[in-house]
């Protein structure tokens, strides 16, 4: 556990030094520009536009950070041969992988928290009435990040280049949001194709389970009532199990790799 923590701590530090905060500066600039634009274009819905734009930007930046950090996580260390330094120490490959994974998660969560604070401050300046549903949306985003990070780490070792890993992960992100529509399309197929379509539907990660951003209008009590605690706990478990599967498969590839 101590070793995993040490690796995670090192990963967070590495990410903060390298890229994350440049993206955050860009986020702040973007959000301020959006404020100027929406105050002119949004009419009476300026606050709604600002809220949605900020939340969408937080999610997109978090996605980009997660994908790029996760994909380059092991690949870069293998290419630079710095992984030798770590693996020659009394550290198993599983510990290394899990440590790195948690490190990325913490770094991305830190950036999400920073972006959210900036976004909330701006909303409050615009006389936004504080809503608990905002935190619920950010909380569910955390599980999306957990899932996509696991998938990205898996693809980083499964495929041969960083570009293909990024493409695969990004494709899964889109597919994961489109699952409900795919289910609808699947129901239109003939009976022979319906079973493979159903299997595929159950296999790909369903990001709509965590997409409460699109339902923020309902407000926290209704959102909680609609989602219900049973569903929320199952969805959290789903994210945990799915990420574990990804890490397990990644570890299989890593353990068979010869350095």
């Amino acid at each position, binding site marked *: 556990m101590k070793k995993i923590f040490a690796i995670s701590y090192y990963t967070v530090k590495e990410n903060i030094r390298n890229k994350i905060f440049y993206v955050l500066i860009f986020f702040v600039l973007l959000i301020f520009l959006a404020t100027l634009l929406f105050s002119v274009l949004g009419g009476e819905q300026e606050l709604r536009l600002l809220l949605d734009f900020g939340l969408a930007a937080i999610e997109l930046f978090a996605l980009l950070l997660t994908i790029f950090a996760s994909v380059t996580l092991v690949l870069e260390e293998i290419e630079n041969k710095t992984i030798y330094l770590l693996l020659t120490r009394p550290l198993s490959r599983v510990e290394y992988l899990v440590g790195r994974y948690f490190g990325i998660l913490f770094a991305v969560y830190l950036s999400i928290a920073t972006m959210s604070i900036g976004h909330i401050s701006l909303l409050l300046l615009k006389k936004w009435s504080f809503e608990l549903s905002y935190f619920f949306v950010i909380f569910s985003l955390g599980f999306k990040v957990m899932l996509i990070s696991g998938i990205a780490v898996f693809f980083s070792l499964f495929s041969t280049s960083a570009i293909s890993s990024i493409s695969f992960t990004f494709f899964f992100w889109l597919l994961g949001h489109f699952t409900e529509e795919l289910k609808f399309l699947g129901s239109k197929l003939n009976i022979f194709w319906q079973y493979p379509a159903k299997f595929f539907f159950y296999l790909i990660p369903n990001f709509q*389970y965590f997409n409460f951003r699109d339902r923020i*209008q309902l407000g926290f009590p209704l959102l909680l009532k609609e989602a219900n605690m049973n569903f929320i706990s*199952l969805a959290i478990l789903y994210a945990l199990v799915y990420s574990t599967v990804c890490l397990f498969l990644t570890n299989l590839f890593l353990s068979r790799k010869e350095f």
Partner: protein
Amino acid sequence: MITWIKIPITVIFLMGSIFILQFFLRKNFSYNYPFFTEIVNLSASKETGYGLLDLSGIIFGMRRMVANITWIQLLQYYGTPEVEHEHKENGCPLCKDYGGGKYYDLLSLTQRIVRLDPYFYYAYLYSAGALAWNLNRPEEAILILKEGIHNNPKYWRFRLYLAAIIYKQLNKFDKMVVLLEEAVKYSDCPSMVKVILANIYEKQNRYLDSLKIWLEVLTSKDESYRLLAEKKILELKRRLPQIKTG
């Protein structure tokens, strides 16, 4: 040897867990959105031509964001004079009175918005108000409100607007005004509906009531309404002493 048996068993166990979890999640999950074909068919049509934008919003899981972009399009469309008509070359029957502020695409634009985001209450109210009272097309307004009621059965304000529009159709203006008075009490009432009520008051020579509504419009977040309210308040203030003395 043992390891190679353990691995497939673990994979099967973990994958099985995902499938079981998915099975239970499906039972508790509700996806209350119209399917993308309903939106894309509408947005890719000749009137709008934004199928790709709407589809990308659905694929990225950002329906609300794209609904907002469409909302800006609607405001720009409804806020600018109509200069050309896309149907012109096809001999569309609507062409003859196009340009006179009929805004025939308002309905399809609103339908695009509310199918992307069925919880966008303000869009339903705004467009229904515009269609019923400004453009005199209550049938279209009713269509939008019925879609709103179907998507949000617990949001009772749609029923209030619907009743007001039906009274308008039946020429029962007094009853309609009572319902509009009820509607403007709520914070999510579009300024446009307040303006409609203020104008009705003015026509009925109820200048003081009209002034009260205009003073409320003055707090709108939309600058165009604030400017209009300032102008009308000055106008009414000039009229009021004459009325009192007269």
